[in-house]
């Protein structure tokens, strides 16, 4: 086992046995070009200066690390801090990555960006980055998701993006990714694919992680200032896994407990969930080797979660590795637990979390109650819940 998990992946994009590149040959030159460009610009002073200034003035970074006093008192255990990614421009951590990739695409001389989106958060973030950098933008979205997230579809169109409906397969996120990859295969010469999470072929898992690791870097400084010590535990939800890696990465060399929370849906036994570690096995899907929800013949299974952002059949390869070496523990929260946490945080703190982030809150409540009052937990509040209000009202039988 590698003693320096923060140094991975290796030159071919492997995190131990995970990751790599499983794509049509047509895309290989583009991936190699991207790898070289990213390798160059991540050390380029001008690029970093521009990114830093936009992180501050456009995204609104650093985001606060907020001590959730009311929630802490309600639970009666560890002190719970929230990393407020919900306060980022466009309402979630997704913009950290999308904006950086849009800048990189422009540096690479690309004139067009494409992206997939499930709930629409990454689509909105990419459309925002494209509007800012003056790039043409097309977003692929499953017809089922388009129906569920009409508001975000309109937001993307307002931002000047073309939203293309994907009506094949399960008509959700995974099909949108297939379609975006097909577009990229066709228009690879002038187009950059803005992958929204730490998934897909190398260099995406490493690059997206790096662009998101500002979350943990800030949180580390902020907690040291607030408490003069490091936290005991970090908690974040895991869909593809970008907000969680973003929080965890700056702490990988510290001896801290970390927990990733997957979507338990209606429960593992029902088969209606997106808990890849609890219910999946090793497989190859959409560009990399990782844990995958699949049948015994290797076809990808449908998933379910109340939160569209966690509703995905596979998980970032670095997470598999961090799990193997015992650095991160993975668990899940069910729809019901997430909905309860959604309401709890809204009432105790006046913060309506994204349903994705509510999974992390649910786990934090469980964990904090078993810890001493001197302990410290940081939860990544990856996004705000405005987008979910209609969905939650529907579940509660309220007609808005």
């Amino acid at each position, binding site marked *: 086992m590698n003693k320096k998990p923060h140094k991975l992946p290796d030159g071919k994009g492997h995190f131990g046995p995970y990751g790599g590149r499983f794509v049509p040959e047509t895309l290989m030159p583009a991936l190699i070009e991207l790898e070289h460009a990213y390798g160059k610009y991540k050390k380029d002073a001008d690029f970093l200066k521009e990114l830093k200034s936009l992180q501050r003035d456009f995204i609104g970074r650093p985001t606060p690390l907020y001590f959730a006093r009311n929630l802490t008192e309600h639970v009666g255990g560890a002190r719970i801090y929230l990393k407020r990614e919900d306060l980022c421009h466009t309402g979630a951590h997704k913009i950290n990555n999308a904006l950086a990739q849009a800048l990189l695409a422009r540096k690479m001389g690309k004139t067009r960006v494409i992206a997939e989106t499930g709930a629409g958060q990454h689509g909105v973030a990419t459309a925002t980055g494209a509007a800012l950098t003056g790039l043409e933008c097309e977003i692929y979205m499953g017809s089922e998701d388009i129906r569920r997230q009409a508001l975000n579809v309109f937001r993307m169109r307002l931002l000047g993006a073309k939203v293309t409906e994907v009506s094949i397969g399960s008509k959700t996120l995974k099909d949108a990714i297939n379609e975006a990859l097909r577009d990229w295969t066709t228009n690879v010469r002038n187009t950059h694919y803005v992958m929204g999470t730490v998934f897909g072929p190398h260099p995406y898992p490493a690059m997206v992680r790096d662009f998101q690791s500002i979350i943990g870097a800030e949180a580390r400084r902020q907690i040291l200032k607030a408490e003069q010590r490091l936290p005991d535990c970090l908690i974040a939800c895991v869909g593809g896994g970008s907000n969680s890696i973003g929080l965890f990465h700056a702490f990988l060399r510290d001896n801290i407990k970390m927990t990733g929370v997957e979507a338990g849906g209606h429960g593992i036994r029902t088969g209606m969930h997106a808990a890849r570690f609890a219910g999946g096995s090793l497989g190859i899907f959409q560009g990399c080797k990782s844990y995958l929800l699949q049948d015994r*013949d*290797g076809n*990808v299974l449908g998933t379910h979660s109340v939160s569209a952002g966690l509703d995905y059949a596979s998980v970032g390869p670095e997470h598999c590795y961090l799990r193997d070496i015992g650095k991160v523990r993975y668990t899940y929260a069910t729809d019901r637990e997430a909905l309860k946490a959604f309401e709890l945080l809204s009432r105790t703190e006046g913060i309506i979390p994204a349903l994705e982030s509510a999974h992390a809150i649910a786990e934090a409540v469980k964990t904090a109650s078993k810890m001493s009052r001197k302990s410290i937990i940081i939860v990544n509040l990856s996004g705000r819940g405005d987008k979910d209000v209609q969905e939650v009202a529907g579940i509660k039988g309220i007609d808005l």
Partner: protein
Amino acid sequence: MSRIEQVFEDLRKTGGKALIPYIMAGDPSLEATKKFVADLEKSGADIIEIGVPFSDPLADGPTIQRAAERSLQQGTTLKKVLGLVREIRQSCRIPLILMTYFNPVFKLGVKRFIREAVRSGVDGVIIPDLIPEEAGELTGIAGRYGLDTVFLLAPTSTKERIRRVAGVSTGFIYYVSITGITGSKLSMDKAMKDTLDSVKRVSGKPVAVGFGISNPEEASRVARLADGVIIGSAIVKIIAEGRDIKRFVKSIRKAVQGRG
């Protein structure tokens, strides 16, 4: 020399070009696939590609995606396709190639897949989402069992990629005529001729061209540049419409000179 290599060698001697049709196994049923393979052989195919359905075929256009969906609904699996090849092999004399995404192979186990494929009478395998860098285990074992592993090149491929793919591809090299997915519109230009020439020169291996060839006229033009012509979506579409594939394949055969 493998059976696939032998086909290209025989054709080379007579100046002919290989006709390589593709069909999706299990669309609309495995029984039908058996009949289609016989039809294709009778209509002049030199090699047949049999597609294995996968839930997420990211290199394929809508025609083959929908065929895969129909096939999966029929309960087609990689194991069943291997069983089908074993039956087909009783009467079919031309090489058979499986085209499958990597996950079904990985799930079955690479070694087990190769052993059972060879035992069933499969001559080669094409895996569109497997690049040489990730194919070490597959090519190593396939080499020992005598199963050809056909890799792909594309118009975007650099000299360095051509060299790498040429180094591991056996049987022939599959040149993707377009930057795109199966069934896209074909565009033949000087750039294609130049890349093809470069692939042939660097690799010294037969090169067959696929993706986007949909009629005898296009097939004939591609045949002038390449050693083989692969036709997939056009045939899959005819099957989906319930029409007869023999007439279409014969018209392509007429346009592409065979073994004379």
